[in-house]
């Protein structure tokens, strides 16, 4: 499957999605289509390889969730993004589609505080349970000591 074919398929199934670039092709989908798109990408586009999931904090514009999935055999590479909207921190979970997302979403929750709905085990993974705040948010102050290591 070439990226042009993929682009057409995506435009058919997800009119709200925007595609840009090639290798990797950036696909921006609405947040309510996030999990649906992942399932579509896996089943229709053949993107079985789940590379990573993370987020970017665009300050006032809110959080953006980013996931990288590949169809290794046909060299189709997708960078899927979804804006959660200002102030929002809820996102559908991909753990039902890709099992590799379980740890990645835990890490994302740990660092950004994004609540992945439908995640089987959403708890902190790298930081301790008693950690306060979400360090990779731009609003997280770097020059002040933080609990519990005050």
């Amino acid at each position: 499957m070439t990226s042009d074919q993929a682009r057409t398929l995506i435009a058919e199934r997800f009119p709200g999605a925007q595609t840009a670039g090639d290798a990797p092709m950036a696909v921006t989908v609405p947040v309510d289509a996030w999990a649906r798109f992942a399932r579509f990408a896996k089943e229709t586009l053949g993107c079985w390889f789940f590379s990573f999931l993370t987020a970017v904090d665009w300050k006032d514009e809110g959080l953006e969730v980013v996931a990288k999935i590949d169809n290794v055999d046909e060299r189709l590479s997708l960078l899927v993004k979804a804006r959660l909207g200002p102030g929002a921190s809820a996102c559908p979970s991909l753990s039902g589609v890709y099992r590799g997302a379980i740890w990645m979403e835990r890490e994302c929750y740990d660092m950004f505080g994004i609540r992945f709905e439908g995640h089987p085990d959403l708890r902190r993974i790298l930081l301790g349970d008693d950690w306060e705040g979400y360090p990779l948010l731009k609003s997280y102050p770097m020059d002040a000591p933080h609990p519990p290591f005050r």
Partner: protein
Amino acid sequence: MSTAAPATRVDLEYTGSERLTMNMGPQHPSAHGVFRAILTLEGEQVVGIDTVIGYLHRCHEKLAETLTYAQYPSIASKTDYVAAMTSEFAYVRAAETIGKIEVPKRGQYLRVLAAELQRVASHLLWLGTWCLDMGGALGGGATIFLYCIRERELILDLFESLVGARLLYGFYQVGGVRYDLPPLWADTCRRTVDLIDQRIGEYERMLEDNPFFLARTQGVGVVSRELAQEVGISGPLVRGSGVAYDLRRTEPYSSYEDFDFRVPVEPGGDCFARYRVRMVEFRESLRIVRQVLDGLPEGPISSRPGLKSVAQVRIPKGEAYARVEGARGEVGCYLVADGSAKPYRMKWRGASFSNLAILPHVIPGHKVADVVAIMGSVDPVFGEVDR
């Protein structure tokens, strides 16, 4: 580092036997760093596992937002300290992709040279520690371990005369590499490569003619093709499960298309298959090193010679994901630049992090002794898992 009540613990059917919860780690001889596995045992059988990571978290992603593109590559080597070259490689590639910075041919070849030598060094450490896990510090495992360390030392010596450091290098820089080969280095390298090639054959015979080694590895920790694809493991792990996924082949970077090498694939999915994949990779990496030395073009090693000031690296607004095939799999760096001297956001895709996520799916049903064998065959480096 969360220890709250685990919900994703994969449990087998409860058969009514008395259960024992046992901590393996974080301070455990075969934890390969600091890793804690909370095992639920029924006799010797593991029926449930919860994994706790994060003991080595050093805020690399936050740190990268505070360091310039010229500064961070030498910090990047601290994520995967066993294969430091490859993590530097991923970061500089991401920066170069956004900035559309060309790398001269000689620079690309030198990058490949360092990355492949690093792969051999990393695999040597893996083979040694894995056998140490299975054989014990006071047994045959220690023998293999010391042999492997002896050979790894030779590669570290090569790196020392090339870079001046033995573990964390700072060899890569945006635009190329920092140092050219010193005189006579190529000859030493050729001799070392030949020696290691011969020694690897010796280890292979010592292990594969050993029925106990086969009994411990064959049929243990089987990762099916479907599971491997779903979890997103990469590197020797996924190739040991019958998936031919090697970034050097699927999306060649840094002139990898110039070299002739084979991507080993084993369908077995057990520890032995992963071992076989790595043993072939040793030889293929050594072959690539020989080809680089034979075909090393003349010319500059970097398009940004003597990179010293921040102003030399101007990265425009944009984003990129660059990945390289590290010793443990896909090492990737997702970089978002806002046009300033420092990245806006950086995400490490550590190969070990994703590879380690396979453990809860594989370990239940095995014996306690197999836990260390499986974990060793995954080859996690906790600097990369926790970042």
